């Protein structure tokens, strides 16, 4: 079946450093991807999305990179802050059967002072 996986369950960084969270997907036909942030006890919060006609998209302190050749995307967070501590999910849109987003299990980002 289709799957979306994150490379590391936990990532620890120092405050002020840049963070990179990686994600791999299995369906080469997926052409829409979303990154979500989930803080403890809250629902997933949209961070940034990217479509397959792009390989890079930037937001405020965040950049998403998409490599369709190896079916990989990454989320880069610049100057990581304590408020960035959360679980980060990538999701890939899959149009087979019924249209749906497939979510990865998440990477926990821990920011240390």
């Amino acid at each position, binding site marked *: 079946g289709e799957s979306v996986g994150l490379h590391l369950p936990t990532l620890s960084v120092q405050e002020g450093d840049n963070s990179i969270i990686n994600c791999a997907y299995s369906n080469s036909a997926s052409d829409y991807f979303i990154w*979500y942030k989930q803080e403890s006890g809250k629902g997933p919060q949209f961070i940034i999305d990217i479509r397959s006609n792009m390989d890079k998209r930037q937001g405020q302190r965040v950049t998403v990179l998409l490599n369709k050749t190896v079916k990989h995307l990454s989320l880069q967070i610049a100057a990581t802050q304590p408020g960035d501590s959360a679980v980060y999910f990538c999701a890939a849109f899959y149009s087979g059967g019924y249209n749906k987003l497939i979510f990865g299990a998440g990477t926990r980002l821990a920011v240390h002072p």
Partner: protein
Amino acid sequence: DAGITQSPRHKVTETGTPVTLRCHQTENHRYMYWYRQDPGHGLRLIHYSYGVKDTDKGEVSDGYSVSRSKTEDFLLTLESATSSQTSVYFCAISAAGGEETQYFGPGTRLLVL
């Protein structure tokens, strides 16, 4: 949380009892979704709706039913709760189906004893 509320936020119930969770949105979005989130599984789609009275099954729909009588409300019912349905349930909305961002509510934590 993009104008999405869920009720109740927490519920404890006993095996065999019926349970109804409510999702309410103020965005007038056409699509609404119910997901469950469990450790190690990420977010999995239970049911979704693409309009009033229009619903369809997701990947883990067994034991669940839904109804949508108004654009703003989407109900998830567990006809006879089981311990395997202990989970955190999230409602999401999107303006359109397919490759559109889904925005999530705050979640309902359900414990079935």
